[in-house]
């Protein structure tokens, strides 16, 4: 299991007060993440895989989703997930780095998922009681249960679906063939 001992110790040596405040918040985040990452790995859906480039930086990792059903089945979709030092008062930042045709993910990689919203009045947004495993579950479900054509980020994709499901399906497949095979 990944430990943060090296990083936490280094942080403790820095003495000027501004970076001290930053380090204090970062260390709160890192302590939360030690538990959350472990829990996330233990509950990872079979369609998901998580990679840390640097095991000392738990606040940055790559999620790969390989949907086994639905329109995007067979594609490999990569997401960059990072937590600022404001975590867990602020939600993780998520960017999809695989180009895809999806009503809730823009072609530029912006992801529309309610629990990733910082401010929400409906109670569906981010809350510090949520954890990384909830985010993984949410992103994974965007390819199945949470797929939503009513409030689209990619309007064209949603409109195409409503007009002509076959064209939608084949456009999704084209994108998968072109961008999401590895």
């Amino acid at each position, binding site marked *: 299991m990944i430990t943060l001992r090296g990083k936490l110790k280094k942080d403790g040596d820095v003495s000027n007060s501004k970076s001290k405040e930053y380090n*204090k918040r970062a*260390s*709160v985040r890192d*302590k*939360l993440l030690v*538990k959350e990452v472990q829990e996330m790995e233990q509950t990872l859906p079979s369609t998901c895989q998580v990679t840390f480039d640097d095991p000392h930086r738990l606040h940055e990792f790559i999620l790969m989703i390989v949907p086994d059903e639905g329109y995007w089945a067979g594609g490999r979709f990569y997401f960059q997930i990072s937590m600022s030092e404001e975590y*867990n*008062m602020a939600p993780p930042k998520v960017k999809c780095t695989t180009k895809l045709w999806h009503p809730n993910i823009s072609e530029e990689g912006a992801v529309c998922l309610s629990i990733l919203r*910082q*401010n*929400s009045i409906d*109670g569906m*947004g981010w*809350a*510090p*009681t949520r954890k990384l495993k909830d985010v993984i579950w949410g992103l994974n479900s965007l390819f199945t249960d949470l797929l939503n054509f009513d409030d689209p980020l990619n309007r064209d994709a949603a409109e195409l679906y409503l007009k002509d499901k076959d064209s939608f399906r084949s456009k999704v497949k084209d994108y998968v063939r072109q961008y999401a095979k590895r």
Partner: protein
Amino acid sequence: MADSEQDNTDRGDGDNLKSDKLFTLKKWNAVAMWSWDVECDTCAICRVQVMDACLRCQAESKKDFYGRQDCVVVWGECNHSFHYCCMSLWVKQNNRCPLCQQEWSIQRMGK
């Protein structure tokens, strides 16, 4: 010092028990560890027991835990409890209980 009573092994008088019916005492062993009903056991924001100092206060006060005197517990009208420190950070951006989404208003504070 209030701290010392946490470590006191022979406190048999049950002082803490008589006033507060909101709690159920689940465990009582020789080192005087106890836990409340699961619901208010752990602060759902920082995941530290509400009776201990919150994660942020722990990061502040290096090895000693004198900071914990100021780190109190807060109960909402919804009966959910958190560290006051944790909850006051959260209500700055969203004045709802993060567990039940009810409008947050403080019922009481204390330890």
